[in-house]
């Protein structure tokens, strides 16, 4: 018995039901005509005044059909049974709006993706379609006219991370005429790219292509460079973020400092540089990480400074020609207002010590890729000579091991994207500069993208030897006389089908990339989520790799996943384009899917307060009630479901709407006879 599901009073609304054939996509499995007629007759008392079926509802003629009915029949609600709302919800909402009906009084129910395409039994599919339409009718009866929330967009942008992706983003936005705050944790912008010697596959000098960009960013009138600074807190929402930034004390007065470098020269203390030189070289206590650093101001390493440790020295102050040294300088904490945020926080390198069988940290002549970058860099600790850890011996045979820490279920499952090309670049550089025999040990050679495979061919032709197989061990324990005094790489050669032991003098581990150690904290700060591997999750892996689920926060570069320089630059520019689009809209409309608290019903129990990860719920101590900030609310509805007093309601997904939809869906049981 199918009768107004226990809700027998007649309704005042006038509903139109539109059933789409979608060619034969729906009509091939569902008796669409019957669904439309059934709705018009059996759901009459639920307010349905017209049921129509049409070949393509989304076509302009189909939309006109709905628009005319709204005008001529005075429809107050519309249900369209067609494809997924993710495809055409906006289409039918717009049609309603054109005919003068509030777009949120239209409900699109899916009978294609969820019925005709997944079921084969025509009767069952038709019954299910009827149930789905009935659910839509009951739901739309409880819809309310809604207006999108409009928020203004502040024209300034925050870019976090001064690597190549962040620099690119900042420059694009600044060139378009808008203010950018570029925040970098290290004393200089430049990121990892500043440490490299050559870049694949063109072998351009990394510094030669990077430093002009750094200078440009440093001198741009629209870019406020905040190096040696970190974001402490992010408040607000898209268009209206308030970001608290801590500018760490450099102990240098930037107004007075000319960047002459005399302090650095005169400073008597040398410490090992673990960051920029990867532990291979030294720096002073007052230092700029590298000569081309932007900004030019040095920083003081307070932990190692003799003055801070013993109270004397001050050599830097004595020699500074402009009195720029300020031992009393304190951290500055201030906030900036921005409309959008680009996160380009980059990556950390995999810790090669974790692969104990490769001996890094135990066997001196096992190097990581970053150490090799510094070795081969003309501005590095050896002035570009490729030598062993003793600082003088030139290797005669070098083994380069790919996929260290990547594509390995013990460490990281993913491919780090850059290691193959990096390994090939190293092979070329070793070959060119030392004439040594070079072995590359790889699992698979991955040289996608423009001109990359050509580079592989070139390295092959140069005579580099390739062994396909995962290296089992790097050891210094010889088995035969020839192996004495060498590192031995034990490996299965899967192409030759045998075990090999290859003696070399130097081993380079092509280590993978991994998310920043503090990526999770950063994600939380900015309201993002991380994938299981720890990379920031983009809005859509294919169609929206730049935006995130948090409106107004974009990601670029390796923070989103391992990528090479061209991809990082492209993504940085793409993020900038999205930000510029937002800025130029001046204001934006947010979907009105929001929760709100009925202040009269709220008991002040605060159960909802801790459920919101977006800090959208604030508690008024004076009145003992909670309130939701509609601009911060993302509309998940978790608080609505939790409120014991039923004081929270969610627009577009209210309890009444969902309860009604359940009743509507259950109007017909599975297997029930269809009666008109």
């Amino acid at each position, binding site marked *: 018995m199918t009768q107004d599901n226990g809700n027998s009073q007649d309704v005042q609304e006038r509903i139109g039901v539109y059933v789409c054939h979608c060619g034969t996509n729906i009509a091939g499995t569902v008796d669409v005509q019957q669904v439309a007629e059934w709705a018009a007759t059996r759901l009459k008392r639920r307010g349905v005044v017209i049921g129509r079926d049409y070949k393509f509802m989304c076509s302009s003629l189909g939309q006109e059909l709905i628009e005319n009915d709204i005008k001529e029949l005075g429809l107050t609600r519309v249900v369209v049974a067609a494809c997924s709302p993710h495809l055409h919800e906006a289409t039918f909402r717009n049609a309603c709006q054109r005919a003068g009906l509030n777009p949120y009084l239209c409900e699109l129910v*899916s009978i294609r993706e*969820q019925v005709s395409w997944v079921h084969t039994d025509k009767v069952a599919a038709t019954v299910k379609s009827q149930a789905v339409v009935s659910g839509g009718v009951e739901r739309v009866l409880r819809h309310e006219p809604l207006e999108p929330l409009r928020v203004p967009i502040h024209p300034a942008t925050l870019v976090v991370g001064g690597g190549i992706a962040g620099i690119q983003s900042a420059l694009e936005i600044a060139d378009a005429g808008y203010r950018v705050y570029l925040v970098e944790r290290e004393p200089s912008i430049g990121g990892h790219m500043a440490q490299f010697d050559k870049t694949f596959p063109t072998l351009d000098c990394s510094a030669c292509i990077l430093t002009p960009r750094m200078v440009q960013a440093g001198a741009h009138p629209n870019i406020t460079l905040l190096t040696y600074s970190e974001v402490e807190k992010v408040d607000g929402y898209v268009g209206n973020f308030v970001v608290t930034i801590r500018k760490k004390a450099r102990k240098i007065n930037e107004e007075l400092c000319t960047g002459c470098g005399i302090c650095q020269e005169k400073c008597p203390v040398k410490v090992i540089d673990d960051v920029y030189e990867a532990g291979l070289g030294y720096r002073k206590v007052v230092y700029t990480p590298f000569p081309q650093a932007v900004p030019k101001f040095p920083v003081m390493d307070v932990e190692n400074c003799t003055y801070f440790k013993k109270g004397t020295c001050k050599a830097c102050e004595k020699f500074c020609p402009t009195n720029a040294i300020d031992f009393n300088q304190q951290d500055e904490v201030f906030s900036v207002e921005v409309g959008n945020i680009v996160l380009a926080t980059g990556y950390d390198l995999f810790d090669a010590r974790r692969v104990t069988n490769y001996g890094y940290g135990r066997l001196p002549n096992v190097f990581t890729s970053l150490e090799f970058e510094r070795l081969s860099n003309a501005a590095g600790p050896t002035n570009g000579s490729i030598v062993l850890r003793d600082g003088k011996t030139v290797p005669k045979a070098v083994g380069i091991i790919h996929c260290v820490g990547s594509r390995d279920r013990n460490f990281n499952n993913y491919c780090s994207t850059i290691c193959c090309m990096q390994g090939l670049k190293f092979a070329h550089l070793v070959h060119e500069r030392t004439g040594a025999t070079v072995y590359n040990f790889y699992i698979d050679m991955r040289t996608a993208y423009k001109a990359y495979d050509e580079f592989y061919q070139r390295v092959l032709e140069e005579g580099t030897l390739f062994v396909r197989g995962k290296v089992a061990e790097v050891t210094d324990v010889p088995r035969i006389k020839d192996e004495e005094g060498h590192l031995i790489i034990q490996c299965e050669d899967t192409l030759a089908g045998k075990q090999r032991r290859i003696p070399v003098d130097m081993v380079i581990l092509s280590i993978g990339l991994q998310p920043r150690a503090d990526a999770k904290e950063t994600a939380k700060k900015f309201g993002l989520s991380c994938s299981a591997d720890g990379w920031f999750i983009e809005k859509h892996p294919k169609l929206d790799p730049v935006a995130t689920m948090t409106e107004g926060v974009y990601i670029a570069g390796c923070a989103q996943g391992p990528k090479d320089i061209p991809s990082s630059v492209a993504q940085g520019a793409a993020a900038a384009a999205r930000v510029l689009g937002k800025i130029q809209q001046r204001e934006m409309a947010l979907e009105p899917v929001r929760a709100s608290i009925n202040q009269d019903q709220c008991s002040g129990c605060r159960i909802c307060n801790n459920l919101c990860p977006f800090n959208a719920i604030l508690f008024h101590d004076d009145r003992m009630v909670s309130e939701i900030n509609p601009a911060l609310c993302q509309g998940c509805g978790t608080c*609505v479901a939790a409120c014991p007093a039923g004081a929270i309601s969610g627009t577009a997904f209210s309890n009444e709407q969902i309860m009604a939809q*359940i009743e509507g869906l259950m109007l017909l049981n599975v297997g029930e006879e269809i009666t008109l």
Partner: protein
Amino acid sequence: MSDESFEPTVIGFTCNWCSYRAADLAGTARVKYPPNIRLIRLMCSGRLDPTFVLKAFSSGADGVLITGCHPGECHYLEQNYKALRRFHLLRRTLQGLGLEPERVKLVWASAAEGVKLAHEIASFVEEIRALGPLHWGGNGSNQSSVISGQSTAHAFKEVPA
């Protein structure tokens, strides 16, 4: 009602960002599953008020499938964990009410897992078919009935914790 002709009706709650999209994907890929399930879109599995499940049962559903994003992948950061907590409480409550807790199931399905979702639906429908009809409420005239004799009998069946 003989069990041979029993066709269970299942209500599925899907998250707008993952499982609803997985359902869309199953459709696009033409992966087949039984027509016994009817889906309701929520913005998040965290939106699932446990009373929705009770409402579905009282309206005649034989089973309820709750689906959400995988742990750590929630569109709203961590709300699926809250759904998980509620799910366990709900199962306990159902048991206390004399319903088989197996009539409610929680499944994680990302937007890419159309095939997985279809398989989960198919196996859940079979699990409910094996449990038999619920007869709790039912549509129309049955609305006001509380737990009928048959369901009470279920309550005394062996219910795994």
